[in-house]
């Protein structure tokens, strides 16, 4: 347990489901940790390996990618494309020593405000347990 450590989490949320889910969590006044910085993308299919690696390089302790449930993608299969890429990126961050546990893919629909808050809370706690990504400059 790292006392006083506040993880930096970058979240990529798709415009049609998860970003709306985050919005719903906000308008419903559901609390979740403020550690996550959400970046809206039109589809999780837009999230490339470079987005994730650059996030870690620039100081993220964890990266969350959230998109529509399979079958719900606004662009038919962008989320499935993302899922495929994430499998490889997880192996890549594993080899690099960043750790697979710092990267997560979740499906959150526009109606799941509560679930969005739960996912963010749980992931933030997980990264807090893992501690800061070693080697990066603190501050």
């Amino acid at each position, binding site marked *: 347990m790292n006392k006083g450590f506040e993880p930096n989490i970058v979240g990529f949320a798709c415009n049609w489901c998860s970003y709306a889910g985050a919005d719903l969590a906000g308008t419903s006044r559901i609390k979740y940790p403020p550690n996550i910085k959400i970046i809206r993308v039109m589809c999780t299919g837009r999230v490339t390996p470079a987005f994730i690696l650059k996030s870690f390089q620039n100081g993220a302790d964890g990266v969350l990618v959230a998109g529509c449930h399979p079958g719900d993608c606004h662009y038919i299969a962008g989320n499935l494309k993302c899922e495929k890429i994430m499998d490889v990126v997880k192996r890549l961050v594993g080899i*690099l020593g960043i750790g697979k546990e710092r990267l997560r893919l979740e499906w959150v629909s526009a109606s799941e405000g509560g679930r969005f808050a739960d996912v963010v809370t749980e992931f933030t706690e997980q990264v807090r347990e893992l501690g800061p990504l070693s080697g990066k400059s603190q501050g």
Partner: protein
Amino acid sequence: MSLEEIIKDTKAYYCLGCGVCTSSCPVARVIPSFSPRLLVEKALFGFGDEIISDKDLWSCLICGRCASRCPSGVDYLNFVREMRMEALSKGKEGLLAHDGILNTIMELQSLNLKQDRNFWITDDLEVADAGEYFYFVGCLPYFDLVFGEGGLCDVGIRSIERARNTVRILNKIGIKPVVSNNERCCGHDLLWNGDLEGFKRLAELNLKTIKESGAKKVICVCPEGYVTLKRDYPRFLGEQDIEVIQLCQILADELREGKLKFLENASVDYKKVTFHDPCSLGRIAEIYEEPREIISSIPGIELVEMERNRVDAVCCGTSGWVNCSGCSKKIQTERLKEAEETGADALITACPKCEIHLNCAKYNADLKIRIKDITDLVAESLA
């Protein structure tokens, strides 16, 4: 570094303006506006800012064809490197290929992270934690994930088999190499893309790892890793008490002493092959004959030469994961066509990057020729 210092350091002031560089340049043949001569002339006339803002600065392949032919001995490669350092310090950089992931992977390795890069070591491979020989694996584990089957930019190759085959060959000739999980990228691409500080960080970490293993000899298979460890580490970090050897040199020595034996019917798949000299192995390290000796001593293989071979060989089309363009593709497909015209069944190369780039070009063109790495060929043919 000021423009004057760059000119002095690289002896650019010796330029006669003859244009041998530009007429030798593989990029200039495809992009007429790209001219090594013009870049040097601009520097001599004081137009440094113009060079720095020119996107063409990043199109240079660092292949060394111009420098090998320059009658005045202008150090063109370091001229480009130092100009890129200047450009980088002004916030200008080239167009990164593959979304920049390979460059990010290199930079991330300079952090204090505990890698898990030795996943490829299987039970049949004998490796050690300490010993006389250090096998510098280089980027192969990462290449395998990015360019391997099911990878991010799948070109259908298995880079990591190269590492396994290298250890198999070394074991066969009685070497149990050190393979370290703390090894980093050698820093070649960061150095030649102008990031000297990033290069030094990686180099220091690698030297520390090598010294901790107690190894005195470092075996490199990747030619870029070889020239970086052999030439650039001493240049930028002082003389090192290590000997750097390329695998082809060891194999050629073993062959001359009769210690390397190949199967009688070693090559069924490849009857006639041609050898593509990687720039770093050929023009830069001047290792031309060793790979040829090895290939032609494999029973059943005939080695034929392409028109442009040895010092005149052409680059695989892109370098440092920067500015990969239609020009790169054209250079690559022309090279593959040249190989096909020799009537060879396969083009043999000795560099993992050449393998990646040529395979990528093959995907987009109707070419039959197979591409094979010399290490894999040797490992499959050993008795």
